[in-house]
């Protein structure tokens, strides 16, 4: 019997296994790209992938994949292809010129994590600087190798350099002859000279090969320090020197232009910390030149103004949207350092940002800027995008300027519910009797939630001027048809604002109607009794007592219960007072 394995069949098993592994790899990669770092789903998948890969590598020593166009091959068999063109794993490998990638036995979990990270960054990156090859190379994996299609710049230097070297080669013999004739020294002189030379060299280079402990420590310190090297900080300090070095204005202006370009790159990358530091440096320089050179100071002024123009703010938006974890703290610092002329552009940003934390950060910036330039920020309420208007309304609340009420008169009638809701929230922050006039406008809002919030807020503000319009609604025959919650809001608000003034009205409601009144009427009466309980004055007590003796049994019971509750509360308060 032939016990030898059929090579084709054996290959087939291997290829099939590779196919499964690549599928799992792609799936894991997708999950890593979707889920946050600490999510258990990609973690678990990564663990499984490592187990299966290790098993495969133990069996076959290597997993080698060839990249052909947008397809992956193993041993000549198609293993995987991207579903969409211009994105995905194979596309990225092909784009960056990787023709082969192989994983070898003894692959470590760190290496697998590193590889996934390289792909995660490489696939999602739009940067022209770091491609997969650079990232793989820098990762320097021991058990992962790859082949790249070479592409070199210039080709002709070698020939031209060597031409020089060979040109005079024939003359070498003659020149050596001259040399030997020049050094025809006598033996004695020669040995003396040799000795001197030897001593000189020894003196200079003695102990050169051995490093004492202090020297090793010094080297280690230098290396350690370099690990925390901050390139941008250094670049900025270079800029500072360059500016000072520029003696003529055109040179100075050229340097400012270069710095502007640099900042564009920083913003594009989402490096807000460095962008902020750049602005700070420019501001410092501007101060320095203020009296010394008005022209230079004015050019720097222009720089700061440009830092907040629509183009730069657009770069900030794009970076905030692109980055998985944008540095919001430094982004805020950058935006905070801008001038009033950037307000309109920053307002516009609100409509561009994808994430809530980023929008919240921009709102904070605008709230700060709006303290000085309120009208500019408030103008945002006219934006055509409702979500921008909502945010601006919120910002107005944070600023706390009563002037905002002028703008809220419009937003309380906005088509979008969320804008109206935000308006109520802002009115709550602003408070005051002027806010009540706007809240009254919300009482006929189409949304019961808005109406109820407005009524509750009116009750909270407690302005007696609104009693009349509220009572008018309560006394209307349609009132009973409102929802229980809304009716409750109205009646409680009346109690809160009016106190004894509204006791007769509430009493009237509680007793109004026939014995045959329906459920809705009964509901209103119960709520009126409870509102009387809220007032908690002698008059309201007397009224409740009266109601507990007369009328429908059910209402009597509720009145009694309310009264008891009030008494209990009273006793408790007394006890507290006595103690």
């Amino acid at each position, binding site marked *: 019997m032939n016990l030898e394995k059929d090579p084709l069949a054996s290959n087939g098993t291997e290829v099939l296994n590779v196919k499964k592994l690549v599928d799992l790899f792609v799936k894991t990669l997708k999950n890593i790209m979707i889920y946050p770092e600490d999510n258990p789903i990609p973690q678990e998948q990564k663990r499984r992938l490592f187990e299966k890969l290790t098993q495969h590598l133990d069996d076959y020593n290597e997993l080698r994949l060839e990249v052909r166009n947008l397809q992956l091959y193993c041993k000549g068999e198609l293993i995987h292809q991207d579903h969409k063109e211009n994105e995905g794993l194979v596309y990225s490998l092909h784009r960056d010129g990787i023709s082969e990638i192989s994983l070898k036995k003894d692959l470590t979990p760190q290496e697998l994590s590193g590889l996934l990270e390289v792909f995660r960054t490489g696939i999602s990156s739009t940067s022209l600087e770091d491609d997969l090859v650079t990232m793989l190379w820098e990762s320097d994996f021991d058990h992962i190798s790859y082949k790249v299609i070479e592409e070199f710049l210039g080709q002709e230097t070698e020939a031209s*350099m060597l031409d020089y070297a060979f040109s005079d080669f024939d003359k070498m013999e003659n020149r050596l002859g001259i040399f030997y004739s020049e050094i025809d020294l006598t033996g004695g002189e020669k040995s003396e000279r040799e000795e001197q030379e030897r001593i000189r060299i020894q003196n200079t*280079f003695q102990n050169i090969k051995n490093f004492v402990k202090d020297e090793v420590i010094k080297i280690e310190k230098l290396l350690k320090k370099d690990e925390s090297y901050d390139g941008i900080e250094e670049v900025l300090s270079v800029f500072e020197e360059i500016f000072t070095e520029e003696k003529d204005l055109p040179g100075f202006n050229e340097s400012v232009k270069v710095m502007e370009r640099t900042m564009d790159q920083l913003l594009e990358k989402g490096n807000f910390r460095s962008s902020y530091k750049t602005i700070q440096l420019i501001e410092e320089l501007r101060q320095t030149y203020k009296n010394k050179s008005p022209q230079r100071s004015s050019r720097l002024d222009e720089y700061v103004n440009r830092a907040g123009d629509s183009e730069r703010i657009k770069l900030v938006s794009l970076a905030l949207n692109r980055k998985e974890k944008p540095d919001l703290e430094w982004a805020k610092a950058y935006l905070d350092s801008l001038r009033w002329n950037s307000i309109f552009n920053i307002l516009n940003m609100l409509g561009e940002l994808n994430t809530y934390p980023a929008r919240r950060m921009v709102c904070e910036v605008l709230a700060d800027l709006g303290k000085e330039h309120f009208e500019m920020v408030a103008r945002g309420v006219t934006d055509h995008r409702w979500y921008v208007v909502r945010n601006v309304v919120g910002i107005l609340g944070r600023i706390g300027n009563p002037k905002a009420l002028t703008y809220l008169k419009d937003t309380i009638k906005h088509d979008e519910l969320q804008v109206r809701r935000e308006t109520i929230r802002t009115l709550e922050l602003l408070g005051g009797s002027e806010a009540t006039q706007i809240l009254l406008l919300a009482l006929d809002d189409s949304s019961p939630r808005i109406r109820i919030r407005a009524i509750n807020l009116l009750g909270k503000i407690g302005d007696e001027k609104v009693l009349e319009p509220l009572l008018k609604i309560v006394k209307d025959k349609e009132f009973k048809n409102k929802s229980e919650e809304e009716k409750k809001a109205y009646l409680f608000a009346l109690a809160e604002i009016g106190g004894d003034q509204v006791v007769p009205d509430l009493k009237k409601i509680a007793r109004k109607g026939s014995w045959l009144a329906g459920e809705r009427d009964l509901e209103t009466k119960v709520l009126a009794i409870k509102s009387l309980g809220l007032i908690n004055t002698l008059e309201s007590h007397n009224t409740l007592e009266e109601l507990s003796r007369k009328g429908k049994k059910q209402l009597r019971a509720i009145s009694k219960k309310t009264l008891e509750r009030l008494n209990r509360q009273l006793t408790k308060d007394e006890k507290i007072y006595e103690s």
Partner: protein
Amino acid sequence: MKAEVIEKREKAFDSFVLEKGKILVKQLFASLKTAQLYDQNNAMFSKQSNALMDVVNDLVKNEGQIQLRFKEGYIFLNEVRLKFGVEGYSASRALLDDFPKYWIEGLSIESGIIQRELDKFISLFSHLDPEKEGTFETVKTRLNQVGIEHIKLSELVLKDEDSHLRSREKRKEVARKTFFHAVAMIRDVTGYVETEKVVPVVKLKRAVQKLVDQIIEEEETFMGLTAIKSFDEYTYVHSANVCVLSILFGLRLGLDKKRLSELGFAALFHDVGKIKLPHDLIAKPSEFNENDWSMIKKHPSLGAKSLLGIRCLDEYSQRAVVVAFEHHLNLDLSGYPELTKPREINLFSRIVSIADAYDAMTSGRVYMKTPISPDEALRKMLYRQGKFYDPVLLKVFVNVVGVYPVGTLVFLNTSEMGIVLKINPDDMVRPVVRIIADRQGVKKSPVEVDLSKKDTATDEYSRFIVQTLDPSRYKLDLSKYLL
């Protein structure tokens, strides 16, 4: 077992192996070196071998066995790649050179080994002659003959596609091509910067990365390449030389590959500001006057500005900007450009500054119109240490290039003329030299001699260096002998 647990264990394991591995390599090298001079009964031999046994025991106890592999310029211990800084670097390079001479890819030391067996191995291996016993089978047989059972050798087997590349000559050729590509690249990029075109940063990075890979494998070849000075392409060749020297320097300091490539990239562009100066000034054959100097002193700032203009402010460019600006600032902040605020010169700038000064002195073009010999250049630099150069870094640099760097043309006590091929890390004033001429004339077939080897009969050095010579004076084609 969970992946995180495996990762944690592996990390702990790695740090133990890394630490002990460095000691193992240093001690193996020291033992082999000592064994070349002293026999097994000598106290010096025992001292080194006992220390080697200690670290072997530590590793065997913890790991069960020791597997050392010498591969592609790296040493692996139990599959963990060892990393070396100034300490142990020479030892690692020497072992990486020695073992493949006998077609040995690795050796494993198994549990049960005793001191006597280890001594036998050290003694045997240190006296092998690659000329006579340069095959794997011979070494293996010799080991069996003396009864070494717990040390096993593994053979260096080259794959078909690799064997062609791995041959010494082929590797040199690849190295040479990579070097000249770097030269071509800097020339092309200069054009891009001059015309403010978009610089292909990705391609540049890849080229530097390739250079780093090649330098790790072929240190000596690259050292030799830096000794070739070109007149026509001076600026570009100088930049490539400084790049290679800086990478070699960084390698000795133990920088990882990423930082090595950042360093190489920065070094390659350190002089980019010169393209903004008039060509006549750079090529001026006579000494610079005051006006010339005031122009020349602008090139660091111009370079920094040019690099900022390539519109790619990643870590590589950031480093390059700073190095371009600082490479003429001395350690005591003298030099140029003149500063408004005190600053600490960055590590990369310190490295490039040393490599730049060395190459400029030995090329003799822009600042010093007449070149000086490498050893003279180093002497001058050592004289200026502390003020101009960081003393400890300069010391590392001398260890990298040697007292007589590769490519130095030397005149020997025997009236022979030779070119330094390789430095002896243990005895830097006695390198390996290729004798190219004597009083009878140019040698048709040059011979290689190791100046550190004593004459067995007299126990004295038969050849030593008397002085260094300027190869350009004899229009000597160093590439013919070095590459």
